[in-house]
């Protein structure tokens, strides 16, 4: 387990109302349900569909391990303009 800082962006942030949250999780896969526990409503598109960045680098595997103090960005998948 490692305490990481989670930041949400895009529609995901507006829907979840999570700007920044501290979460304990060992891997990215473990992180998603934990963040989900923080919200009251069901999301149309869940956290596990988000684009994930760890410390500014794109994370391509949900198995990736997390270290204490990591900053995890969850970007809502829909973008365009």
């Amino acid at each position: 387990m490692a305490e990481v800082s989670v930041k949400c962006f895009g529609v995901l942030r507006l829907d979840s109302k999570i700007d920044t949250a501290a979460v304990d999780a060992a891997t990215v896969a473990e992180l998603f349900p934990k963040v989900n526990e923080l919200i009251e409503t069901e999301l149309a598109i869940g956290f596990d569909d988000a684009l994930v960045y760890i410390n500014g680098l794109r994370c391509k595997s949900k198995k990736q391990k997390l270290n204490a103090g990591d900053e995890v960005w969850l970007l809502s998948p829909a973008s365009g303009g």
Partner: protein
Amino acid sequence: MAKYKGYAGKVLKVDLSAEAVEEFPWSDADRERTLGGKIMAADILYRHIKPGMKAFDEDNWLVVTTGPITGCGCPSSSRFNISTISPLTNIITSSNCGGSFGMMLKKAGYDALIITGKAKKPTHVEINDDIVEFKDASNLWGLHVTPAQEQLPPKAGKMVIGPAGENKVLYACVFSGERTAGRGGVGAVFGDKNLKAVTAAGTRQNEVADREKLKETNKKWVEQLKKHPLTGKQLPRLGTAGLISPMHAHHILATKNFGKGRFEGFEKVSGEELAEKHLVKNSGCVSCVIQCTRRVKVDGKVVKGPELETLGLLGPNLMNDDIESVIRWNYELDELGMDTISTAGTLAFAMELNEKGLWENPLEFGKIDNISAIFEDIANRRGIGDILADGTKRMSERFGGKEFAIHAKGMELAAYEPRGAVGQGLGYATSNRGGCHLNAGYMVVLEGLGLNVNQYTPFGKAAISIFFQNLMEAISAAGSCLFTSYTVMPAPVVNKPNSLLAKVVNKGFIALGPVIGLLDRYPGIASINLPIILYPYAVQHATGMKMNIGKMIKIGEYGYNLERHCNNILGQEAHADTLPARLTGEEQIEGNKKSKVPLDKMLKSYYRIRGWKDGVPKKSKLRSLGISGYPAAILNGEGLSDG
């Protein structure tokens, strides 16, 4: 009388010098070849322009055009286009606007308006059905955009300029309501002609070829736009400003005059910040279901908020993380009538010139207290404002710093840092009007925003860029907003970017480059219609013209080549598709050799597919498109080539 419905059927030509009007001939064959919009405008300009003609020549034409579906009840189709020789780039600019003028021009009975000559005094041209009056606008001269519009007939569609246009700032805009024909200095051409305003009103009802089928198509179209994650969710809720965060994540957020692709303070100037702390409500252009416009407060008044380009370029690109300043500046620039993209790009360049000691001036990265005053100086061409009013390219010729003068063909780049999306870099370089993200083919939407096609590989990018350049050219010519084209990206792929399907599509796009290249060369092979691409159906039901995807791409290809050919006639020589050395020669991310635009490599494929030589369409290419070609002997430089 036009055979095709949807169109008003006439083109009005107004001569400001003689205060005279006449009808400009426009046939059904012309309609079939161009559809309307920017391609129609290029076709009209092609008949008139001559080598050496300049933006501020009395006989430079302003060509205002609509599309066949404008005013036909189709969603997001209130668009109109203004094309002319740009004072910023000395080539054709085409500037698109979502205000009501286009729809009202059609109600008055005209598909297009050509404005020539130069008025002797400030003038307002008032069109009411068949009556055209030349009114003294001396009382409007000097007024800001909103007060000027308040003096005009309330129910008419309007085009006006602000002080920047009057003073011929080379990137001055034309406004219609609060919507803008922003790029390329069309407002300066209005100002040079002493033209403060044009209004149009009328009583004509738009006839369409098959009302029931069009209604059905429009219903499907509205549903499609509302259901799609980009047009139904992202844009209405966050506006285009919602791109700041993903652009930062993907290294595409232009920062410090395109020195970097990420900005530490991005969250403070993001779409989320705008939505959570400043948004009063969202709104949009006439007839639009997307409603991407932000409405915010400035001094207690509810006004239009900043879009992505404005937020990015007046924020991170100036090293400014104060969103309230950007909201205010956006309002001030709108009232003065200046393009926010070119203004911001010019300021960033001036700041770097100052930082490098090449031009001592009061502008500094991160310093925001003097910017509003500088805007006033630019709009009125006072002090250093007179220098800044000429834009980045001319400043680089005067002070140096060409390698970091961020423009293409003289037009400042939009907010996407192309070293993080190299296909977008190719698009910027090849875009006919200069550093425009949309005329470029908008590859960045595939390269990280929307889809996740490899942002650094040059492979396949030329073919895909050409495909989208041609397609978007035709969509614009039809009268539709380009944002509607996002629905072409399958929703499941956009919604689930980590899925196997998304991974296959993202990889497949690149692998399919050669196939897309074939489609670029032989659009006829796509002579089909697909239920997810509704433009051909809408055009066909509105006009009665047989239409399919392949035909639209072919029309787009015609437009893209014709505009390029016009630019060559006006003096644009070979090898004009360039980017500043910072973007092609310097790594954006130290140690990442791929983080620069491999332009030469991509251009080679691009020209081969296009049938161009070094950026100039070959005679054989022009002939194949039915463009007669301009006598090579009177062209400058290499001119046309069959080599």
